């Protein structure tokens, strides 16, 4: 079977449609992950012990099980208890929840990496807890987190094809659908790969820049 450029141009608009959904899912999924991650991190670090433990377990559980199965669960099982989500929303929640657990770990590590002495210095200069967080801890904790978070953002972007399994018409699903009606897999699948590669290479450059900008402290 030969590579067919005409076919490539013919399916391009369809694939671009899919790419839009892919990007949409990535953006909202990332926003949700950033927020959920914060909740997880705060619960784990500051909540009473039983709640902190339960949170830790939930985080471990989500991290230890495949996103695909979680998506199936959210999409097909949750309606049994009356939660019926549109496919795209279910996908975004799945992505957000899954990557929220990764974000939580980044937040936690970032905060714990601020040296003990900074807390003591804040106390010694009579700052309140709130002032300590806002003026001392977070400004030091956040910059090193940024490259790590961006890394997970890229990872999440690359997992969006899983949403095709719950009927979201993103890039992969559009490609499959094209393949289904034309019986040709080579062009759609290769193009999807190329799309992802291009986006990833761009984001790798961006990530390197972020690392240079924010994470130089780690290297000595």
């Amino acid at each position, binding site marked *: *079977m030969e590579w067919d450029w005409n076919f490539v141009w013919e399916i391009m608009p369809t694939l671009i449609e899919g790419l839009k959904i892919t990007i949409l899912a990535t953006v909202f999924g990332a926003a949700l992950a950033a927020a959920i991650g914060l909740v997880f991190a705060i619960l784990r670090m500051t909540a009473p012990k039983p709640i902190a433990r339960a949170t830790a377990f939930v985080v471990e559980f989500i991290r230890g099980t495949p996103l695909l199965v979680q998506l199936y669960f959210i999409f*097909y099982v949750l*309606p049994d208890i009356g939660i*019926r989500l*549109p*496919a795209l929303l279910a996908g975004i929640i799945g992505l957000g929840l899954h990557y929220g657990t990764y974000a939580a770990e980044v937040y936690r590590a970032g905060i714990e990496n601020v040296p003990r002495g900074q807390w003591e210095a804040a106390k010694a200069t009579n700052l309140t807890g709130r002032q300590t967080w806002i003026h001392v801890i977070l400004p030091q904790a956040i910059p090193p987190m940024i490259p790590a978070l961006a890394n997970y953002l890229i990872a999440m972007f690359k997992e969006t094809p899983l949403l095709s*399994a719950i*009927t979201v*018409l993103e890039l992969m*699903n559009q490609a*499959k*659908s094209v*393949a*289904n*009606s034309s*019986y*040709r*897999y080579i062009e759609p699948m290769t193009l999807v790969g190329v799309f992802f590669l291009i986006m990833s290479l761009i984001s790798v450059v961006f990530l390197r820049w972020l690392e240079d900008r924010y994470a130089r402290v780690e290297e000595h």
Partner: protein
Amino acid sequence: MSMRTFLTMTAGAGVLTAIVAAAPASADDSKLEELREQGFARVAIANEPPFTAVAADGKVSGAAPDVAREVFKHLGVNDIVASISEYGAMIPGLQAGRHDVITAGLFMKPERCAAVAYSEPILCDAEAFALKKGNPLKLKSYKDIADNPDAKIGAPGGGTEEKLALEAGVPRERVIVVPDGQSGLKMLQDGRIDVYSLPVLSINDLVAKANDPGVEVVAPVEGAPVYCDGAAFKKGDEALRDAFDVELAKLKKSGEFAKIIEPYGFSAAAAMSTTREKLCAAK
């Protein structure tokens, strides 16, 4: 580390080659010989009862694989090994040499006939809808769905029903591609789609299993033709297909064919009253 890296890389490449070293399938009249030798034919199925099914013990059944198993036995190929696939992935999979034949109720249509080599007809069925009790949107044909801007239809990706819906003018965003029957029924029950379309016998099986009084069946769908499937071979494997046809004809004649498919609810007479030529020409 330099030279060593090269050596390690070579070793790595060796491992890869070992994994990759699977013989590419050849495609000519020696195909049947090849199948006889390996002792089984690889078939693609969909796990959509009663066309195709997988039992709790993993055994493959359903009308289509059962017929194929019998025909292959007569051809001297003792067994079939099935892999479950989405409808849309079947023909690309066949072309990619993933399986030797599709026995899945993949209905004959002109464009499919152009892509694969079909046997003579095996299983015939009309199309059906599963919908909410009382058919609230009054959907009786694919056209009805196209005309109602609120109606969403679920269908297997790359299946006949998806095409029928699109051809009737239902816009892409209202044709939801559903991975499998169970998901389709679930989405109907959950109200994500308004109608789920499959062949009559498949819908009946699904709805019977679900035992949900909230779901009803419209069968057959108005204006939709009766379709028949055949065993689909790769283009180039026509010799194998012809041999298959010869044995299939014998089974039909002896009545054995009816014995296999009628318990599943299919009509042997329907399959025997038409031919591949007619079905592939039909529009």
